[in-house]
Structure formats: C-alpha cells, structure tokens
C-alpha cells in the first residue's frame, strides 16, 4: 500500500510532468482502462436494452409507416370510389334527364296526336249531327206528310163507308172466302 501511494505521489509529482496539456501516461492508462471498463459495462448491460429499444422504435415507426401507407392506399381507393361514384352520378343524372326529355317529348306527341284525333272526331260528329239534323228535318216532314195523308185517307174512307159500302165489303169477304177453296 505504501508503495502504491508512493508511486502515486510520484506520479502526481508536478515536476515530472512532461507537458502542460497532455495527461500523464499513467493517467492515460488508468483513464483508458476505466473508459474501456465503463464502455464495456455500458455495452454489455445497456447495449441490449438500447438495441431492443431502438428495434422497438424502428418497428413502431415501420408500423406507423405501414399504417400510413395503408391509410393512404385506402384513401386513394376511397377517392377513386368517390370519383367513380361522382362519375356514375353524373351519368345517372344525364340518363335521367335524357329519359325525362324523351318522356316529355312522347307525352307532347301523344297529346298532340290525341288532340288532333279529338278535333277530327268532333268535326266528324258535328258534320254527322248536322247531316242527321238535316235528315231528321226531312224525315219529320215526310212523317208529318204521311200522318196527315193517312189521317186524310182514313177520314175520307170512314166518310165513304155508308151502310151500302159496309154490306158490299161483307158480301165481298163472304164471296172471296167461299171461293178460296
């Protein structure tokens, strides 16, 4: 022990210092050894933990990167879907508008045709009614003439049917029936 202290003191001797900036050789040796020991301890004991922590961090970052990539991919897919849906909606809108246009055109055409037909029918009916009214007037006139004629005939015949005429008719009937077979 004493030897060691003596040696240490001897080492600490400022007179034996060979340069003001550089440490003593022993100090370098001890310091180096101590550093090696400290670093070695650190490497041995803290290294795995650091390595593990780094690995975990790397994995976490990778995972976050993967998640972000997946989210991005999904977002791109969604965006594509939305773009497509937008495109579909636009196409559907155009289709509905086209159909509505077609239906409106058809309804218009139908309505026009129906109106034309109805007008033609009304015209025909009016013409027929006019003709019928004309005919009816003629018929009524003819009927009235016939009625008056027949009334006049009946009156004339009835006036001429005196007793003699009645007897002649009866005799005529008896003769014609008797001669029938």
């Amino acid at each position, binding site marked *: 022990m004493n030897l060691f202290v003596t040696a240490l003191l001897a080492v600490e001797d400022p007179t034996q210092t060979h340069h003001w900036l550089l440490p003593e050789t022993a100090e370098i040796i001890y310091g180096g050894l101590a550093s090696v020991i400290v670093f070695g301890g650190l490497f041995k004991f803290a290294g795995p933990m650091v390595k593990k922590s780094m690995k975990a961090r790397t994995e976490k970052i990778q995972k976050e990167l993967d998640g972000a990539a997946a989210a991005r991919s999904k977002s791109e897919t969604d965006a594509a879907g939305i773009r497509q849906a937008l495109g579909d909606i636009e196409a559907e809108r155009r289709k509905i508008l086209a159909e509505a246009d077609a239906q409106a055109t058809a309804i218009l055409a139908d309505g026009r045709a129906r109106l034309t037909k109805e007008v033609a029918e009304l015209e025909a009916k009016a013409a027929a009614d006019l003709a019928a009214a004309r005919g009816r007037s003629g018929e009524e006139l003819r009927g009235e003439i016939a009625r008056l004629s027949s009334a006049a005939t009946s009156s004339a015949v009835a006036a001429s049917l005196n007793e003699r*005429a*009645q007897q002649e008719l009866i005799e005529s009937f008896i003769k014609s029936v008797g001669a029938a*077979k």
Partner: protein
Amino acid sequence: MSDARIEAYSRALFEVAQAEGNLSVVEDELFRMARAVESSEQLRGILTDATIPAERRQQVVEQLLGGKASNTSVQLVSLIVGSGRGRDLPAIVDRLVQRASSEQQREVAEVRSAVALSDDQTKRLAEALSKSTGRKLNLKVVVDPSVLGGLVATVGDEVIDDTVRTRLEQIKTRI
C-alpha cells in the same frame, strides 16, 4: 187466376147452361159479353174493382144485360163478377165456348165486323169459312167498330183479314 180455376168455372158454366137446355144461346151471349168486357176499359174497371161491393157489381151486370140476354146468362155473369172473377170472365167464357164447340165437334171461328151481320150473312159466312178451312165451325160474330169496314175471321191460328183498318194500315206503312 190459375188455369185450373178457369177450367173449373168454365165447366160449371157449361153444365149449368146444358142443364138449362140453352147452351147454344148462353155461350153466344156470354161470348158477346166477354168481348164487350175486353174492349171496354170502363166496363172492365167496374166489374173488376174490388173496392166496389159485389152486390153493386152484380147490379151493374143485371142492368147491362137485363132484357138483352137470357136469364141464365145474366145469372152466370153475375155469379162470376160477384165472386170477384170479373177479370177472368173473357178467359172463362172462351174456355166455355171451346168446350161447347168440342161437344159439337166444331172449331170456334171468331169474326169481327164493323156492323152487325144479318142471319143470312152469318149463315153464308159460316158455310164459306167451313168450306175454306175444311172444318166444322162454331161461328162467333163480334161487332167491332175499330175494324171500320169489312171482316176479319180467326179460325185457330189462321187469320183471314180483309178489313178497311188493315188496308189503311198497309197504305200508312207504304206512305
């Protein structure tokens, strides 16, 4: 009225008239009465009106036929009208006439004329119709002014029409 009831009434009338010995006269008088009921709505209304007492309806019959028809005919019509069968008088009498004609193996021939026929005309007409149809006939003449003139004879389903009314109708149709 049911057919059976009409048949029963006509049989009763027939037997009464036969029993009285004047079937021919009674059926002829009843036939004329039936035609009068058919042609006169007013008479039909009085004889069939259920609100008029039966005695009153019978009085009407007796007033109408009294002195113009035999007592048997008056009593028979009065019986039918009094029993509330006035509406069926024509049908009952027609059945009676058919029965009477069948008894004599004759067919009923109904002749309508605007004026009454003389006995001679009736006889000659019956002969002419019998000759024409080839059947024995029981001729019934109905005075019907609506025919205007001439005669129309109905024998079964056969109709011989030579009336002024029909001729006028034909002329009217042609006009």
